[in-house]
């Protein structure tokens, strides 16, 4: 579904990604972790072309992302994305947030888009919040709306960029529960997160990135069983020991 091949990216003189390669099969859940500034967010933003890369190739559903001829808006409708800061549209109601791209990009009728929005809000447990504005919702609720908004486009895969990092601790589980449900339903997911409990329970594979390099890329059981690279070990000891 997602194939990342020898991807290298520079910000001016600074190399953010160094020959990164990995694949995410259909229905697979892959957690990407690593220290801040390691390039993990940049890597998943390359997958839906929010960030350009200079070398290598990324294939999504068989389409080369870096090809200038690729219809990016079309590609992006196949890959949903959820951001750290939710990025709901503050001037629209919850329902309108979920309807906007359905109508504008997919050309769905107002009734169809509303029906889809209602169904998805129900799925993320927010059916009664449709007429409210984002600022009236808690962070956890906003992030669940953001997930529903991405799902409304019927994506084949979902990217999550630190979806719980901006949340108060008591709201993290409500978002992770929705993501777990999504994974159980067979969604292909690439998740940048430090939530190791989620990784352990849900992920098929865990990737560890440090200084722009993929240091570890192995099945979840193996990742948590030990025998890790010293860099992975040092990172995990920092985030697990508190």
């Amino acid at each position, binding site marked *: 579904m997602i194939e990342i091949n020898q991807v290298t990216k520079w910000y001016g003189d600074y190399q953010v990604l160094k020959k990164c390669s990995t694949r995410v099969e259909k229905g697979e859940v892959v957690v990407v972790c690593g220290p801040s500034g390691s390039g993990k967010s940049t890597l998943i933003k390359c997958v839906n072309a929010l960030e350009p890369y200079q070398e290598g190739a990324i294939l999504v559903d068989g389409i080369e992302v870096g090809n200038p001829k690729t219809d990016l808006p079309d590609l*992006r409708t196949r890959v949903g994305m959820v*951001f750290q*800061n939710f990025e709901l*549209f*503050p*001037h629209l109601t919850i329902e309108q947030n979920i309807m906007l*791209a359905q109508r504008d990009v997919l050309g769905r009728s107002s009734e169809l888009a509303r029906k889809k929005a209602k169904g998805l809000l129900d799925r993320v447990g927010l059916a009664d919040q449709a007429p409210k504005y984002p*600022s*009236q919702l808690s962070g956890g609720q906003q992030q669940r709306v953001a997930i529903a908004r*991405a799902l409304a486009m019927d994506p084949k895969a979902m990217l999550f960029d630190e979806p719980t990092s901006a949340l108060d601790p008591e709201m993290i589980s409500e978002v992770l529960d929705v993501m777990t449900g999504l994974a159980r339903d067979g969604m292909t997911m690439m998740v940048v997160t430090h939530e190791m409990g989620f990784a352990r329970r849900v992920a098929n594979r865990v990737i560890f990135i440090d200084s722009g390099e993929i240091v570890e890329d192995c099945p979840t059981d193996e990742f948590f069983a030990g025998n890790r690279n010293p860099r992975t070990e040092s990172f995990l000891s920092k985030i697990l020991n508190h």
Partner: protein
Amino acid sequence: MQIWNWSGFFSYLINPYILNGVLTTIWLTVVSLIGGLVLGFVVALMRRSNLRLVTVFAKFYIWLFRGTPLLVQLIVIYTALPQLGIRFSVIEAALLGLALNEAAYLAEIIRAGIDAVPDGQSRAGRALGMTERSIMRHIVMPQAFKVIIPPLGNSVNGLLKTTSVTSVISMEELLRRTQVLIQEKFMVLELFAVAAIYYLLLTTLWDFVQRRIEKKFGQSTQKLSLEDQR
């Protein structure tokens, strides 16, 4: 010699010749505002372009029209351009000068409004497969609008009064017509008082309209939604 002629003052306060001048001032303001908004929006977008040449051109435009007096711009358009074979009627020259000048100021106001919308909002639109044009229309501009409205209102207030400058190229708006009457009737103070009253009336009316618009759109969604919650 009479110091103040009350009957003259009142007769010119309700005088078809003056009232027509007031109407001219109003439509000059409206038309040059619309022209200024359209052109200002284009210049604001050019100013934000990734192409260096386009950005430089937009900056040059703003620099030129904000850096020279409107009076000079009008005189150049009306009396100097004919030397190059480019001729405009009084009305064309007045509208062109006002719109070009206004656009330079509005471009900066619109750009500030667009810049005030966080980049993450466009990124979210892009991630949903929306085109840049759709993002601008449905996501960025509605939010930028709230930031743009207060300074835009001030700009309209200024423009109402600035139209008087077109009197120098004999545009028959309120001030010009007042001056014409003064030369015939010599009631200098009375006639200027009439003109001042009409300018005050127009700016006061606009203040009222602006406050209504700000109430409707200018308020942040946060404030609005808090009221909904109660």
